[in-house]
């Protein structure tokens, strides 16, 4: 059970008759020497924090210390003019909610990183509340997401400084897409297709946070990331094939990450961080003296 590639996990599922969630339980039990119960207990702890962070961002006052974020999730949730259907609109609001809670020093579960922590909770809560998926199925959906994250981590990188934002919100969108396909009864092959779609849409996304804070553009990239997850899952469930297989797309993200200039990877020297307004915000945020 080495699991270097998604196709190896798919092979394992085929030969054992297990689904991807159970394959990951086997992996974790084997390599960590833990029980199934321990794995599920940890998953439930994470799910609880995910649900709470969504709730907090939608109900509490959230204005980040820098002033950049100001109750955006509630604004999306309560918008009168809408372009999205109710389900996706709520998903977007939920992703932003977690991003805001994170920026305001609230409690979140990184998935896979703190910067991209809005996408998985938004996907899972939306599947539960808008698609009638029972809560008991969410731990398995998280396991499927972790399979995608695991293979991504092994072959590419979650670090904005290595793979740019495709490593953070891109990988989170792929994890989200996989769990949606799984929860709606898609096949293992369809799960892999959705991963391919989500990562292709994130290819080359730079990491350029203004003032080095996980706020702008991170929060709205979580919003677009969750939309990416639903769109990619929809395409896979409709039977579309990602012409480039998911494992090769992951390889490509690594290559693209390596080719990207260091200035575009969390250095604050390029992209939005280096715009006139980005620089001004940075000056304003850093001028303030440390709090006593």
């Amino acid at each position, binding site marked *: 059970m080495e699991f270097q590639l998604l196709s190896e996990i798919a092979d394992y599922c085929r030969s054992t008759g297990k689904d991807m969630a159970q394959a990951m339980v086997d992996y974790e039990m084997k390599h*960590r020497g833990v029980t199934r119960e321990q794995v599920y207990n940890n998953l439930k702890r*994470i799910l609880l924090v995910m649900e709470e962070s969504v709730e907090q961002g939608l109900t509490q006052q959230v204005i980040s210390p820098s002033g950049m974020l100001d109750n955006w999730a509630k604004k999306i949730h309560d918008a009168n003019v809408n372009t999205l259907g109710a389900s996706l609109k709520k998903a977007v609001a939920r992703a932003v909610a977690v991003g805001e809670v994170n920026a305001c020093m609230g409690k979140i579960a990184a998935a896979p990183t703190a910067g991209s922590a809005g996408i998985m909770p938004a996907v899972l809560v939306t599947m539960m509340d808008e698609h009638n998926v029972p809560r008991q199925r969410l731990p398995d959906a998280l396991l499927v997401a972790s399979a995608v994250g695991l293979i991504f981590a092994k072959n590419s990188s979650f670090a904005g400084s290595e793979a740019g934002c495709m490593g953070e919100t891109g990988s989170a969108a792929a994890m989200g897409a996989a769990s949606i396909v799984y929860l709606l009864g898609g096949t293992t092959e369809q799960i892999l297709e959705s991963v391919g779609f989500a990562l292709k849409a994130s290819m080359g996304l730079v990491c350029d946070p203004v003032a080095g804070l996980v706020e702008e553009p991170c929060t709205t990239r979580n919003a677009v990331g969750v939309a990416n997850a639903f769109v990619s899952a929809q395409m896979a469930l409709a039977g579309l094939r990602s012409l480039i297989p998911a494992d090769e797309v992951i390889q490509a993200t690594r290559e693209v990450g390596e080719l990207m200039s260091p200035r575009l990877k969390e250095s604050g020297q390029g992209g939005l961080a280096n715009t006139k307004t980005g620089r001004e915000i940075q000056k304003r945020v850093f001028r303030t003296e*440390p709090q006593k």
Partner: protein
Amino acid sequence: MPDYPSLFDILGPIMIGPSSSHTAGASRIGSIARQLLGDTPVRAVITLYNSFAKTHKGHGTDKAIVGGILGFGPDDERIRDAFDHAKRSGLAWDFAFVGDLSRFHSNTARVGLTGKDGGTIEVVGASLGGGRIKIQEIEGFPVDFQAQLHTLVVIAEDIPGSIKQISGVIAEEGVNIASMYVSRTEKKANMVIELDQPITASSMERIRTLTWVQFVRLVNPIVEGTSRYEK
């Protein structure tokens, strides 16, 4: 990433935002300093270096470190109001900022603590990303441990046989030594011993009462906000 990462290296840590390196890791450095002090801290002098110095405010690095010094885990929501908690619990603190010191990792903090019984400790730690940290200096001795295991820290006179005696106490308990790191200055030795399990209070006492031992502490791993399983 290790060869076989845990699923909970992918999902989690559960943490107070916004940044695993600048917030979660920072609080962990504070917590380790508190454990090394071995007393309730009443005064803290904290120097933030490099990226920590430049971006501490937006990331709440200052609050996270003070929270850690108060004993809050990286997932403790009290971190957000750590300064209020510090005032209430009688901890005075001061920050200094050093923007560029290339000798140190980009996210480094020096924490000097004074306890209510007058003891002091000075610790330098770096935040490595993903909430992981590395302690690099204790009382001026270079060290290198990540506090993911139970870690025994001993400062002693550098006499022959000292290492053997201490490892003997550990072996008698049947506890495995995962790694051992020794550094020396003139006449003093610092041992950092990582253990698979903690040793008992009575073994700690045996080490403490060795006449040539000046300082001994057992640092427990900070379980919250990591991929570790609850015991």
